[in-house]
């Protein structure tokens, strides 16, 4: 029987449309336990490829015949080898083109909604790593917030939409993924903004992103306004776009809140986090739609694949917004934190411009989930 290539984009469709898929993950067990392709209706079997070198007979009965079987490995090579063996045993089988490396890189652009006078808000969902980037489009202009390092996805999208990228923002100095913001700004002539309190060590020029700063996108003047909201980092800044959306960066997620420890100062910043979540955000209009910079679990995805929810609903439902005691809050966000993201200290160095690893090294650094939240 035959082996067929499946792209990360095709896997993304299956995930968003809640289709079934059987994933035979042939990476070693540690890698699989740490991070895998999540899906509402995906089933899994993890057997390292090196345990299958003598043959796949033992696993054939475990592979379903009523749904697609996708063989996945780190970079593709082993999945092709195993898929060929499965095909020789008489089954149709798929392999993931580019492996987990391409899954980690794949971005699905999804329209979140309309803005005043024909403007649009797009969310770029990096399903494999849980990163969310944004593009605000209005009358031939665009602003980008929290772009990941695949800069061409954003510049090509802007070309397709026939808009000029004017403003590029990072809500904070990221620790889980490498920012593409500075490079997009260099390539397009856009202004690159970074919160100065997060940028004390950066080695490049940037425009300070200060509380209260507003920029206009397009002639109809859609407003992107900055709101200082420290806690995940000391500089963390949120945005209110067109009085409709609240971009929270890594401060507030759908089902969790930001962790204050990734720059090494959990004890110092927990008070800021509390202040932002329990006072500054409380003063905002509850009908704002929250658009975070990450999701952690696929249950946070909406039916259309976006990650977005009304602020008022989060006040009611998000556990991290409902811890009355300050002492308990402090305990929750400083003790028993999950492991830090892979290579987070190196990633911060990259985002400060202090080190410039090549593409393959960047891919290695970004392996695994984002782990920016505490539930």
């Amino acid at each position, binding site marked *: 029987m035959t082996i067929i290539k499946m792209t990360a984009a095709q896997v993304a469709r299956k995930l968003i449309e809640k289709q079934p898929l059987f994933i035979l993950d042939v990476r*070693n*067990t*540690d*890698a699989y336990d740490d991070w895998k392709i999540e899906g509402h209706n995906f089933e899994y079997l993890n057997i*390292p*490829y*090196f*345990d299958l*070198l003598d043959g796949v007979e033992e696993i054939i009965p475990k592979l379903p015949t009523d749904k697609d079987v996708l063989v996945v*490995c*780190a*970079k593709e*090579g*082993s999945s092709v*080898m195993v898929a060929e063996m499965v095909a020789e045993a008489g089954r149709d089988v798929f392999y993931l083109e580019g492996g987990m490396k391409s899954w980690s890189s794949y971005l699905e652009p999804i329209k979140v909604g309309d803005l005043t006078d024909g403007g649009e808000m797009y969310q770029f969902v990096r399903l494999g790593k849980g990163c969310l980037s944004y593009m605000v489009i209005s009358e031939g202009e665009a602003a980008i917030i929290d772009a990941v390092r695949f800069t061409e996805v954003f510049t090509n999208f802007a070309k397709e939409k026939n808009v000029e990228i004017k403003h590029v923002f990072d809500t904070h100095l990221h620790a889980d993924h490498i920012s593409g913001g500075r490079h997009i700004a260099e390539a397009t002539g856009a202004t690159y903004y970074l919160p100065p309190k997060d940028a004390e060590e950066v080695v490049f020029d940037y425009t300070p992103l200060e509380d209260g700063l507003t920029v206009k996108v397009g002639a109809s003047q859609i407003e992107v306004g900055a709101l200082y909201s420290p806690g995940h980092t000391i500089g963390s800044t949120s945005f209110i776009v067109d009085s409709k959306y609240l971009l929270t960066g890594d401060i507030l997620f759908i089902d969790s809140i930001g962790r204050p420890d990734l720059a090494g100062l959990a004890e110092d910043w927990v008070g800021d986090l509390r202040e932002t979540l329990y006072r500054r955000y409380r003063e905002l209009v509850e009908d704002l739609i929250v658009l975070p910079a990450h999701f952690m679990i696929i249950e946070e995805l909406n039916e259309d694949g976006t990650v977005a929810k009304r602020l008022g609903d989060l006040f009611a439902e998000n556990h991290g917004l409902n811890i009355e005691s300050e002492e308990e809050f402090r305990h929750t966000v400083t003790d028993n934190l999950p492991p830090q993201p892979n290579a987070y200290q190196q990633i911060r160095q990259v985002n400060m411009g202090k080190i410039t690893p090549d593409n393959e090294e960047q891919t*290695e650094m970004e392996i695994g989930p984002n782990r920016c939240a505490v539930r």
Partner: protein
Amino acid sequence: MEVTQILDAKGLACPMPIVKTKKAMDTLEPGQVLEVQVTDKGAIADLTAWSAAAGHTLLDHKEEQNVLTFYIKKA
């Protein structure tokens, strides 16, 4: 440590370093040591896990100028 055989798997991508390592190990006698040279970084975790699963002993590994060298004693 006496190395019985040296396997040059430099420049090869996954899964070939492990495939070749397994073939080479099949030709050795128990107790003999195979030296494996690879450049694929993914081989660190995979060779370690494969050796453990197969019962072989990973005696040592080192990294010099982007070449990873493993010493594996056959079970």
